[in-house]
């Protein structure tokens, strides 16, 4: 080590600093630098190339007057709320069921979690086929004799968002289940013994004792899923391509399309800045909670 050299603070522990160079580059240049660049140039009049002509909030003005963007925001809000509630509830219930000392636990877990190993593209294309109105599930049920059965989510403007939800939930719930199960396994056995001694029913113990104890796991899961939802892109491209019309557009797709296909970088940067702001709104309370917890412990 450089201990015996002159005590220049910059060369102390030099190897570690060299080893950390990629991290320093990533944090300073990519995470901080690139994000700042995007925020700054979202105030510019950039079209197909970024320009240094700054126009205040003009891009944002246009953005929030574009029906496609507003539809995207509405979609991601619906998708976000429904899939968060659904995957947290179902994920927790499945985990609680799995925690009853069942047989074949590994088999069940493997089945629930495998969709998570797949690409969103794969998930999107499989569900596109299942939800295909002429040859998919609808036809199968009609062939069984239920002639009036209707399950045509993807070709209607009002229902296409549910197609995205079905596919997204299918892929993601297993992950929530795995996290919740890990959380449940961390609950002290004595809690269960105490509850049993006091004659408290199991569901009550879960609701009023275990869930409050698992607050940390819930919050972390929530943050991870929520920041994943903001990024939702591949699934939409594979399942609906944003259609019919603009009915299933999402913000991440708006950014991509305006950046790389429509040559309107300014709009794309404004849209991505809005996405960043949303994530910060989710993230800041979480950081606050985390620090609060650490101080108490």
């Amino acid at each position, binding site marked *: 080590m450089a201990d015996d050299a002159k005590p220049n603070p910059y060369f102390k*522990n030099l190897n570690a600093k060299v080893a950390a160079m990629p991290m320093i580059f*990533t944090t300073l240049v990519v995470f901080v630098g690139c994000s700042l660049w995007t925020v700054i140039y979202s105030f510019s009049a950039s079209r197909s190339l970024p320009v240094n002509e700054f126009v205040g909030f003009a891009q944002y003005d246009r953005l929030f007057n574009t029906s496609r963007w507003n539809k995207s925001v509405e979609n991601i809000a619906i998708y976000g709320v429904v899939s968060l509630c659904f995957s947290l509830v179902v994920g927790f219930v499945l985990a609680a069921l799995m925690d009853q000392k069942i047989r074949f636990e590994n088999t*069940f877990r493997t089945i629930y979690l495998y969709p998570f190993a797949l*690409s969103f593209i794969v998930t999107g*294309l499989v*569900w596109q*086929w299942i939800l295909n109105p002429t040859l998919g599930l609808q036809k199968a049920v009609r062939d069984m004799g239920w002639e009036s059965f209707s399950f045509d989510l993807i070709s209607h403007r009002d229902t296409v968002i549910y197609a995205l939800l079905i596919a997204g939930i299918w892929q993601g719930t297993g992950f929530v289940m795995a996290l919740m199960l890990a959380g449940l396994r961390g609950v002290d056995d004595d809690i269960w013994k105490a509850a049993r001694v006091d004659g408290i029913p199991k569901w009550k113990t879960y609701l009023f004792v275990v869930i409050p104890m698992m607050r940390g796991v819930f919050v*972390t899961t929530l943050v*991870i899923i929520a920041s994943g939802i903001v990024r939702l892109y591949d699934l939409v491209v594979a399942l609906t391509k944003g259609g019919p019309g603009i009915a299933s557009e999402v913000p*991440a797709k708006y950014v991509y399309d305006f950046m790389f296909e429509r040559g309107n970088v300014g709009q794309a940067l404004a849209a991505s800045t809005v996405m960043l702001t949303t994530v910060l709104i989710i993230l800041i309370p979480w950081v606050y909670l985390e620090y609060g917890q650490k101080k108490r412990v």
Partner: protein
Amino acid sequence: MTNEPFGPRPRRMLDPGRIILYSVLIVAAIYYLLPLYIMVMTSMKGMPEIRLGNIFSPPVEVTFEPWVKAWDTACTGLYCEGLKVGFWNSMQILIPSVIISIVIASVNGYALSFWRFRGSEVFFTILIFGSFIPYQVMLYPLVIITRELGIFGSLTGIIFIHTIFGMPILTLLFRNYFASLPMELFKAARVDGAGFWGIFLKILVPMSPPIFVVAIILQVTGIWNDFLFGVIFAGTKNFPMTVQLNNIVNSTQGVKEYNVNMAATILTGAVPLLIYFISGKLFVRGIAAGAVKG
């Protein structure tokens, strides 16, 4: 967390509560398995059978032609060379990306747990919170950076991008693992005169195969399943398998061949699924690593 529950299993198998419990679990399992079943069945039928029958019925005449076609001759736009092109592209992206990102992140995690320097924790904190920034926010500046470096639209470019975005989770993984090792080990090695690299290569790496396996699982599935970075940074001739799959299935020209599409979809999902089924609990540990912070 890794311990199995011990103690005697409950004996009363016909308890009504248990029956409901298992029924719910089995119904849920069917919902999760159904798409896989439909994929496999559809991929082994001929097109006439698909038009006449329904998606649940098993093939009357099993054919593997859709698989051959998906792999060898399916068309994306003008080219009809099948998914194999995408498969090899994905491999070329995957292998160097996995190796480079893990080497960098493991050394980084090591430096952060045993050789902290002024500001190292600050960088680490930014790194972790940076992983929550939507990729879309950083895309355009990264296009400029890679273009300036002359690696935009090339294999090097996409490997560079995967290394950057793999760093937060991998560093977290290695840092937490190394931090859980006894400090005495490190001190003893220092007393014996081992330096930064010596301790890492001779003591820590040989102790850590499981965490490297977790990292490999995490990166292989993550990089294989990537679509966004591949479509932007890899360049048309290096498009990974996911991008090519989407181009094949969602191409607007020609008659839709659902059997070929499903075969192609299974082929693309095969690599991560294989990893998943082989690795079992380690996979769970890998994804939980993102959630359990140190």
